């Protein structure tokens, strides 16, 4: 079974580096990082991820808009998106079974286990 392709869109470079490292360390994931929200759609087109981990609060282009762009793209529209953000809180996520505004959510800071669990749950099989 091939590695899952994860597109990580977050303007926080240290975070993306470490999460990428952690995920790839498991040997189950191939992670592409995009720190520029404007380039997220382009990266998705190129990378064709099985799942997009998307930050919400980003300069110039919020995560919500990025999600709309991806969903609006004919080729990418089926790509699962999980928000990974400090803008929601854990209990909100928990209380809504991990879904906020029709999108799965992970509240920062999240443990690696939580992230992997969400990926495994939502990634395109």
């Amino acid at each position, binding site marked *: 079974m091939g590695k899952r392709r994860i597109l990580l869109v977050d303007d*926080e470079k*240290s*975070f993306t580096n*470490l*999460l990428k*490292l*952690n995920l790839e*360390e498991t040997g189950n994931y191939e992670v592409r990082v995009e720190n520029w929200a404007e380039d997220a759609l382009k990266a998705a087109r190129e990378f064709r991820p099985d799942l997009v981990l998307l930050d919400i*609060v980003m300069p110039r282009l919020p995560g919500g808009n990025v999600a709309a762009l991806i969903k609006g793209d004919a080729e990418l529209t089926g790509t699962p998106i999980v928000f990974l953000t*400090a*803008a929601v*809180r*854990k*209990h909100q996520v928990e*209380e809504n079974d991990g879904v906020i505004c029709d999108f799965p959510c992970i*509240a*920062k*800071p*999240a*443990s*690696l286990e939580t992230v992997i669990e969400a990926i495994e749950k939502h990634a395109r099989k």
Partner: protein
Amino acid sequence: METTPIKILLVEDNPADSRLLRETLREPGTAHFALTHVERLVVALQRLAAERFDVVLADLSLPDSQGLDTFRRLQAGAPDVPIVVLSGLDDEVFAVSAVREGAQDYLVKGRVDAYVLTRAISYAIERQRVELALQEREEHYKRLLESITDYYYTVHLENGRPARSLHGPGCVAVTGYSPEDYQADHELWFRMVPETDRQAVLDQAVKVLGGENPSPLEHRIVHKNGQVRWVRNTVVPCRDEHGRMIAYDGLIADVTERKQAEQKLVKSEAFYHSLVENLPQNIFRKDMDERFTFANQRFCTLLGRPLDEIIGKTDFDFYPAELAVKFQRDDREVIRTGQIFEAVEENVSPSGEKIYVHVVKVPIYDPNGQKLGTQCIFWDITEHKRSQERLQTANAELARSEAALRRSHAELKSAQLQLIQAEKLESIGTLAAGVAHEVKNPLAILQMGVNYLSRKLVPDDENMVMVLKEMREAITRADSITRGLLDFSASRQLAITAESINTIIDDTLRLVRHALGESRINLTKDCGANLPPVGVDKNQIQQVFVNIFMNAIQAMPQGGSLTVRTRSRTLTETTHFEGSRKADHLWVGDAVVVAEVEDTGSGISEEYLSKIYDPFFTTKPTGVGTGLGLSVTRKIIELHGGTIDIKNVPGGGVRVTITLKAQKEQT
């Protein structure tokens, strides 16, 4: 017959003369004499001053005095004692002069025999006695005459007309003119009457001439010295045996003093009358039996009765019984104590209107100091009183407005403080949300870092295990702080549902059961049955109770008791949060559900009581509390329109009281 001898002082320096006289006086047949003989005037005067003599026989030629001078000095020394002068033939002229000046007699020496001497002495004594008596009577009559202020006169008529008048001697004292003056001047009696009074005098004269008995007339006359005097002139007709008018008699009495006193009295009377009648006060007097004896016109007008319908009446005739009783009681008190009574009291005007009067009552006395009754002065002060009352009302209103102003001011000030506090909390909230968000990202990085390192962990290295564990815990702690901050700043949207406060408490207690057990804390529940539901966001209120229970548990590390009570009641007082911006406060009369949570811990020290709601204020050890629990708790309660009150319980421990508005029953 003679019991006491006649005492004679003989003043004679010639021994022969004196011896001869002594011999003469001893002759039988003469009266019994006691003779004292001196030779000098000085000695004679001394004796006269020392004792009483019946007669002095004195030679005028003495060694220390000569001639008439001797007599004069003797007379001055004893004015009441008769003096008989002894003279020689050569100085008889002196003796005659002495007799002219008051000596009783003189005897020529050598021509005196016993008979002549005795007779001279007796006569001298007798004459002196008679003279003194006369003198005394004359003085008596003089005094009497001088004191008479009346005189009579008679007017004789001829052919029915006054022909002549006879005035009695008293007329001098009254008019200054003598009877002779009147006789000489027939019109004097009329001229002495001042013109203004003449008509009355003439009228009286005409009446008496007509045979009438006119009433006495008082008129003025001008005294000879120019003074005006008042006389009372009484005339009566005088008839002969045939009943014909032949004269009339008049009696003039000087009544000037009485008249003056009367005029003074009239003046004084007019003065006081004017005062009493013109004063703006009501004045009346009552006797000892409470009957009116006087009332001034004003009081008569007030009662609406003439004076004669007031005199003799009592208060009961004019006033309602209860007032009359009161007035009379006051009068009697004034009479009993002799003290002035002064008061402001209610009265009733004749029209039945209630009025206020100022009253002054005093006791009155007759000239002997006997009590006569009371005098009362009173005046209407209704208008004054009303103005005063209006003023007082205005004052009270002013005071009320002022109090209201002060209250508004205090409320404004408090509202301002609340606004400032609210703004402060709002700013803190916004800031906290920003901070929380910004902190979360680095925390996420740290988390990832720790995750990575944990996977790469060499299991043998205990230190590394320990370090990573500490780091993980630090991340968790920091995360919980950010969560608190966000709870504090957010929670704008409440999911309100009708909930049972007892159920929420039970659910929450299950969440903290573990902590309760660990600290060996006894739980006592006293939850009211059939409480009305409260409209709350269940999760939020659960968070509130978690915070409160955890605070209580953490306050009792050595164990203790946690008591939870719930009940419903109707508010009788209100409190609201400092900093609350919510409009839907609780009001008096609101039905509320109250939950009390009480611990037996150490309580909150006084200095911290005012800070417990401040964000980040905590007394707990680092890592145990975030300092956000109570700020969030209060924020939630506030959002629900409820109140939270935290107080120390006497004897230790803290009681938290949460009051939430009961949901109205759906109908």
